[in-house]
C-alpha cells in the first residue's frame, strides 16, 4: 500500500495486515501518530489492503513554553 508520512509528505510502500502492524513495521509509536484513510482516522485493528492509500500524521510537538 502507499503510505504518505506528513508533514514532509515522504512516500513509502508498505505491506501490513492492519494499522497496528503498519505502525510496527514503520517503527512508529502508536501514541505519536494518527493513521488516516479517505479523511477518516483508523483504529489499530482496521484491516488494510495492498491497494489502500493511507496518510500518517505526527501528533507530537516540542520545545518549551
Amino acid at each position: 500500500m502507499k503510505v504518505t508520512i506528513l508533514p514532509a509528505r515522504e512516500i513509502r510502500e508498505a505491506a501490513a495486515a492492519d494499522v497496528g502492524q503498519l505502525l510496527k513495521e514503520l517503527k512508529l509509536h502508536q501514541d505519536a501518530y494518527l493513521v488516516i484513510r479517505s479523511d477518516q482516522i483508523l483504529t489499530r485493528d482496521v484491516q488494510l489492503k495492498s491497494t489502500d492509500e493511507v496518510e500518517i500524521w505526527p501528533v507530537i510537538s516540542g520545545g518549551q513554553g
Partner: protein
Amino acid sequence: MRCIRCKAPANVEVRRHRSAFCSGCYPGWFRNQVQRAIESEGMFGRDDKVLVAISGGKDSLALWHALLQLGYQADGMYIRLGIGNYSQHSQSASERFAAKHGLALHQVDLKEEYGFVVPQLRNQREGKPCAACGTVKRYHFNKVAVDLGYDVVATGHNLDDEAATLFGNVIHWQTDFLGRQGPVLASTHPKLARKVKPLFRLAERDTAAYAVIERIDYILEECPMAVGAKSLEYKDLLNALEERQPGLKQRFLVGFLRGGRKALAGRQEPALIRECRECGQPTTGEVCSYCRMRQRKRRQVESRMAARGS
C-alpha cells in the same frame, strides 16, 4: 473496534481509558474531558474572560474551539516570534481560525514592537532558544491579559507536555519547579494573571484527533528551533513505555499531582513578588527574567560590535 457510545465502527481509540469512539461521538467525549478539568480544578467560570495562548498548532486551536463550543468567553492571543516560514505559517493558521469563527485575536510583534526575534535568543551552550522563547511567551501572555482585563490565561499544554516536563524535572531534581507544576497557577500579585491548562487530562493524540475530526486547519510542521529539544526526547521515551503499559503517562502525572506535588509545595517558602525595576512587570527578583535576558543579549551584541571595531 466499536464506539463505546453508539456501537458504530470506531475512529479514535483512547487506550489509557480502554475506550474507543466514532467520529460523531468523539468530540463530545473530548469536550467533556475539558469541562471536567475546568470544574475539578476550579480553573474559571462562565462569567470569566479567558485569553487563550494561540500558536497555530493543534493544541491551542483545539482548546480555543472546545472552549467556544462549551460556551466560554474566549479570545486568542498570538505572538509573532520571527521564526522564518514557521512563524508565517503559524500566524496564518491562527488568523484563519479567528476569521472563520469571528473571534478576537490579539497579537504582539516582537520585531516591530521590541526589536528582536526568537532565533536571536539562542542559548550559547545548547544552541537553542526554547527556554528563552518560553520566557518571552509567559511574559507577553501575562502582560496582555492583565493590560486588557482578562481573568485567566489558558494554554494548550496537554498530558504529554505535562508528563514530559515532570519527567525532566524529576531526573534533574528541580524541586522548586516540581513544587509549582500543575494545571492551575494562581495569581499571587495584581499584575500576575491566573494561568490554567484545561487539556492536561488529554494526550497529544487526543487533541490531534479532535482537530482532524472538527476540521480545524492547524499547522503540522514542527518549530525548527525545537528539533532535538530535550522535551521531544522525553516524550519519545514516555511513548515507548506507554506502548507496553497503556495509561502510564496519566498515572505518572496524576499520581504526582495528587501526592508528590503537595509534599514538595509545603516545603517551600512562598516567593515574594515585586515589580521589575525595568519594566514594572511582576518578578521575584529586582529585574525580571525577560529584562535580564534582553540585557544579556544587548551586551553580547555590543561586545561583538566592539570586537569587530578593534
